[in-house]
């Protein structure tokens, strides 16, 4: 069986976020990159399935420029069998989904795993769009994933409960939290082995841009905390009503 796992190259969660070019571009100065946490869980689950004895070939894929290779190399160190980088700056979800769908078409893969959302732009669109391009089923935000006889089993969290889903091959699924217990840490042996694994760079297919970011805003700084004396409940109620406007 062959799986394609999308590996997002995203800023470390502790990064300081700044913008440049009139707030249209993300400022990448001093930013450390990591594998997107949901993709990391996705890859970990695939590796767990493989380690349990299923014959599974795992290809890590990323749409991005040369600097994303370190992130793909980490996926290889964790245990992915090979990697593909589509050599272009990823612009919007539609564009990225199109590129990945093309690779899937040309590669005899059985299914695709993405993260539930990237933790930079939080789009959460790529999996659904890939499914649409390929006209295959999609199970989003799965919290449990198993390969069964001729099909795959999933669980998803829904309002107030859980949904158990099965799908035929091929399909796309996006990994939510709990897809795997905790992300796998690559060992030294994995890091050394990653050196020798194949990382193929391919040229993108043409696709016009559909969307464009016109501006980013940072959340407003939190206003200072106002202390109200415990015996002045009236003042507290007045502030909540007139200033905070929440009662």
């Amino acid at each position: 069986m062959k799986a394609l796992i999308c590996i997002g190259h995203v800023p470390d969660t502790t990064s300081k976020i700044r913008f440049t070019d009139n707030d249209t571009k993300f400022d990448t100065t001093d930013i450390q990159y990591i594998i997107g946490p949901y993709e990391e869980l996705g890859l970990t689950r695939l590796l767990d399935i493989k380690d349990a004895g299923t014959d599974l070939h795992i290809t890590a894929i990323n749409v991005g420029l040369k600097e994303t290779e370190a992130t793909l190399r980490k996926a290889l160190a964790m245990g992915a069998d090979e990697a593909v980088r589509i050599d272009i700056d990823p612009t919007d979800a539609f564009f990225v989904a199109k590129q990945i769908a093309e690779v899937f078409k040309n590669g005899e893969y059985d299914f695709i795993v993405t993260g539930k959302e990237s933790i930079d732009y939080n789009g959460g669109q790529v999996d659904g769009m890939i499914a649409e391009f390929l006209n295959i089923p999609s199970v989003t935000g799965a919290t449990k994933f198993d390969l069964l006889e001729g099909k795959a089993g999933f669980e998803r969290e829904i309002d107030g409960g859980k949904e158990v889903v099965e799908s035929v091959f091929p399909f796309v699924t996006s990994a939510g939290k709990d897809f795997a217990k905790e992300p796998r840490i690559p060992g030294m042996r994995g890091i050394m082995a990653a050196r020798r694994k194949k990382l193929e760079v391919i040229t993108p297919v043409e696709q016009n841009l559909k969307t464009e970011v016109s501006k980013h805003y940072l959340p407003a700084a939190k206003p200072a905390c106002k202390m109200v004396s415990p015996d002045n409940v009236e003042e507290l109620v007045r502030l909540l009503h007139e200033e905070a406007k929440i009662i």
Partner: protein
Amino acid sequence: MNFELSEEQILIRQTVRDFAEREVKPLAQDLDEKGLFSIELTKKMGELGLFGMYLPEKYGGQGLDTLSYIIAVEELARIDGSQAATLAAHNSLGIGPLYYYGTEEQKMKYLPQLTTGNALWAFGLTEPDAGSDSRGTKTTGKLKDGTWEINGSKIFITNGASDIAVGVTTQVVSAVIDGKKQFSTIIVEKGTGGFSQVQMHGKMMWRASDTAELYFDNCVVPEENLLGKVGEGSKIMLSTLDNGRLSIAAMGLGLAQGALEMAVQYSKERKQFGKTINSFQAISFRIADMATKVELGRNLLYKACKLKDAHKDFGKQAAMAKLYCSEIAKEVADDAVQIHGGYGLMKDYPIERFYRDQRLLQIGEGTSEIQRLVIARKVINE
């Protein structure tokens, strides 16, 4: 000199950092308080591939360079000195002499199990009356009828007595020729008759690492347990310490880095006089000095590693890095406690443990005075 790390070295740093944060951090305080050595954590370090990182694959290693190994020690020490000690002592002092001086047969016999994390090896040089002056060794080894008979004892031996401490490379006086001692190094395995391993308790620092006294009472091992040649003992032990200095320096650097981060974090949160304390110049200047020392220490240590990896003489730089990184670990930990105020003296804050753990670094594997002796000798004779 090129200070850029390779893609692999960056990944190793990230990996060991993740491991230390996830697996070691939650246990460190408890193990320290109870003075417990953790076999389980040691096994996990083995699974990660941290033991024998620099050995060729045929001995179970990963064939990584010195700097990669040093980065791993640094990252563990950033979280916990005890686990870093287990790792550094086993790699540099345990595996080191077997790999550099063992015969192919000895290497194949011992090294593969020593890279798994299921077995640790010790370095027995120090004796009750022979510390800085390692030629003061009194333990004797007599070769007769194809066996060595060893008598004496060793003290303060890291990784010497836990259930997974499977043996030691030890220095013995193998003869006295014209009043001069001749030293040799002998391999002694756990379970050999007359060899006993006793855990030492009551340490101020590295409380979760295994420190032992070793006793040899008519302990008999086969002649082929000699490491290197007869009479090479002192050379083997001292060159092992040259390598060991790099990893002690890495422990100082990592500890200082961890203490610096704690101080910065605390200074952003603690408010006095209506402001966070980092807005007081007395605090922020102290932080500036701490960060400068850490940066300098890292540059010096990485340079020594790069010299070693380029097969150049690195003895002087290794001694300098050991001296400097262990001294700044003391200063930076002390400053970090000062920034924490009274809370820095309480066990609820890890800086309290860091403040204790740094104290070994200026003593173990050659005191600061001995490092100065080594450096001075090299500088003056250059």
